[in-house]
């Protein structure tokens, strides 16, 4: 590495931090300040606790807090527990490989599209009830049940569990790739331990540290999600994040101060939940330490081991059913209750929606491509700089730097997006492409970093050494040796980033200032009460975009390296 190139690379970590940390920090300040009567849009004022007081006495707050904490904490805990249980009971089986194969398409189904499909399944007029109506249920008309949007947020919790368990499973797969599971299980078994004991005593203690940050990200997401809560969450009162969003968008600007106070409260609730998770981890570790060496080979949960595959199949099945019901609705012309399938099909829903969808689709793709491309350049620049630094100063990536990368995922979006919006208005940058791409970058960059990190850091640097000695050109070696060898993980990280960008709802609304409609913002707004057939068309379109990304990430390297056996794995 020539000194000039090393110097040039040093700029990447600073650029990256500025790109995704600066907006968050500034956003937190500008969102939090009105909660204390400062920087208020309602006019000049001084420090005051009135907004907080108004919030605490607001009649909707207790219900909103109950729905938020109940759904958020339950969804995050259940997702982690299910992912670990599925892994412990199924690792190494054929079904485990099927899960691994299904994860990319499962994750490419955006939350909003999934939630819409789930509503179409569980609604009183949904597909599940149609399957048993009119016989044996006896329903000739949809019953008067509350299935979606229940006040205890059970449907919201279920939706999040069904979406976050595959995410946690992906993190489990990633973590397990760094643990020698096969030999650990082999050694454990040779010592007479049951499979579940081996997992709880040998594998999970190694695995959990790698799941800690993803779990915190799931906690933060589950506590603060807005688009899902609008589609399937309770409405009277809604979850805290929805309540805050409504306050921020009230025409009466004084509500924004209560909204800011709510955003601060949500931030601290999230922080409290993360600290509680750390405390629980500490207590479990302490309690388990005493039992670790008690020689107990058998596990009391052995009879339940078969439920692991049951849960996995159920998650897979529900995802497939959600997708199927969306496809059927999008193609249906007349579908009356209790018919199991439509009586008339038509392509008219797609034709009717296409004209209105072109612009949101174009905006979505453009923002996603731009934010992914910039993210990839920044991330690869950071990795190259990290390698150069490691060559000169022996640095290694620490857990602390991972916390920084995870930061945008650990803070509720609504706790800093309003502040960013205020800042952009001050700078006359609201509603610009620059702002839209930047805010997408904030959320895309961590995912690109996390999905690329392992492959990039484990690349055999000797290929580049040989390349440089052969070509005398670091640039040629980088573009013709390193990048092609890393093509598969780079494209996969781009696909992940692309799907993250496509799914952004709140950031697009707040920063776009109403000037940008993406397929996600349109889908969520339609979900509030439009024609099911049109909603299905939009939800499927929202799914198709990331799917194209994932399919490309898999097929392009496959086609390009179809004759290169060593590039297939």
């Amino acid at each position: 590495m020539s000194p000039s190139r090393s110097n040039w690379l040093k700029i990447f970590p600073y650029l990256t931090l500025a790109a995704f940390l600066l907006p968050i920090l500034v956003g937190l300040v500008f969102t939090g300040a009105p909660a204390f009567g400062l920087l208020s849009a309602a006019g000049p004022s001084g420090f005051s606790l009135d907004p907080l007081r108004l919030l605490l006495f607001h009649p909707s707050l207790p219900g909103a807090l109950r729905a938020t904490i109940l759904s958020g904490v339950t969804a995050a805990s259940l997702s982690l527990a299910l992912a670990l249980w599925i892994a412990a009971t199924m690792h190494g089986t054929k079904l485990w490989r099927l899960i691994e194969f299904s994860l990319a398409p499962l994750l490419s189904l955006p939350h909003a599209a999934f939630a819409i499909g789930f509503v179409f399944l569980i609604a009183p007029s949904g597909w599940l009830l149609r399957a048993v109506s009119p016989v044996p249920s006896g329903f000739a008309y949809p019953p008067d049940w509350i299935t979606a949007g229940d006040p205890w947020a059970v449907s919201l919790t279920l939706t999040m569990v069904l979406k976050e368990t595959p995410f946690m499973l992906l993190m489990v797969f990633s973590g397990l790739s760094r643990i020698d599971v096969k030999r650990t299980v082999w050694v454990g078994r040779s010592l007479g331990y049951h499979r579940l004991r081996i997992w709880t005593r040998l594998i999970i203690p190694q695995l959990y540290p790698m799941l800690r940050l993803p779990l915190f990200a799931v906690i933060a997401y589950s506590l603060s999600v807005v688009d899902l809560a609008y589609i399937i969450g309770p409405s009277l009162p809604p979850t805290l994040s929805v309540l805050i969003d409504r306050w921020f968008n009230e025409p009466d600007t004084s509500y924004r101060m209560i909204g800011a106070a709510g955003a601060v409260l949500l931030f601290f609730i999230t922080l409290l939940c993360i600290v509680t998770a750390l405390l629980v981890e500490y207590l479990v570790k302490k309690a388990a330490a005493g039992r670790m060496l008690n020689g107990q080979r058998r596990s009391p949960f052995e009879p339940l081991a078969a439920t692991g595959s049951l849960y996995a199949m159920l998650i897979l099945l529900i995802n497939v059913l959600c997708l199927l019901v969306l496809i059927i609705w999008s193609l249906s012309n007349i579908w009356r209750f209790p018919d199991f399938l439509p009586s008339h099909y038509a392509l008219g829903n797609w034709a009717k929606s296409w004209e209105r969808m072109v612009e949101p689709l174009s905006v979505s793709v453009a923002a996603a491509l731009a934010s992914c491309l910039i993210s990839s350049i920044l991330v690869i620049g950071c990795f190259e700089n990290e390698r150069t630094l490691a060559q000169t100063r022996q640095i290694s990536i620490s857990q602390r730097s991972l916390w920084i990368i995870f930061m945008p995922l650990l803070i509720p979006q609504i706790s800093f997006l309003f502040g960013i919006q205020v800042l952009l208005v001050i700078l006359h940058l609201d509603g610009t492409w620059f702002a839209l791409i930047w805010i997408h970058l904030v959320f895309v960059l961590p995912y690109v970093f996390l999905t690329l990190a392992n492959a990039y850091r484990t690349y055999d640097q000797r290929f580049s050494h040989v390349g440089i000695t052969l070509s005398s050109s670091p640039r040629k070696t980088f573009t013709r040796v390193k990048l092609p060898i890393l093509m598969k993980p780079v494209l996969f990280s781009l696909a992940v980033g692309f799907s993250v960008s496509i799914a952004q709802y709140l950031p697009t609304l707040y920063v776009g200032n109403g000037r940008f409609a993406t397929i996600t913002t349109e889908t969520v707004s339609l979900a509030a009460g439009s024609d099911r057939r049109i909603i299905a068309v939009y939800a499927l379109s929202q799914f198709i975009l990331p799917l194209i990304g994932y399919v490309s990430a898999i097929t392009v390297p496959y086609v390009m390296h179809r004759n290169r056996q060593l590039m297939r794995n």
Partner: protein
Amino acid sequence: MSLALESVQISLGSTPLFSPLSLTVEPGTIATVMGPSGCGKSTLLAAICGTLDPGFSFAGTIVLNGRKLNDIAVEQRRVGILFQDDLLFPHLDVFGNMAFALPAGLSGAQKRERVIKSLESADLEGFQKRDIATLSGGQKARVSLLRALLAEPEAILLDEPFSKLDEELRSSVRTFVFGQIRRMQIPALLVTHETADSPDGTYIKLT
């Protein structure tokens, strides 16, 4: 065209890995360096190549063809290297791997001609389009050396390149590698555990 090491010593912290080493390798000759695991054989090659880990400190002078290499960037040293792993680029076929080493500015036809000629010299005619995964261990070793030589290095370093080959293959690959180096008239430095790898049975022991 010679490679000279003058009082070369590499230390980890304050501990030297070996006593100061001085040697001159003449064109077309292969100097062999031996020593137990961890004595610094591969580290010495990394220092000559310019990829020495920063944890190590280097003292002494490396001169290649009258050029002092100490402060020259890796890509400008013109030192080729062969490892025990072939390190053929997995995304390229045999032709792509070899053409990568050719200097810029050659036409497609010139590149083809040079690669084909090089492959013929190693009894690998018609291997241009082969995926490297389909090559045998000996074929990979030969392609790897041919690739290194196509870059026209002024010296070549051999980091236990025969250690992963079985006995029979080891002998034939060794003969091929040494023959090519002598034909190219470039100096080579071989580090190995095996006395038998030394072309003339002599070696320098790192102590």
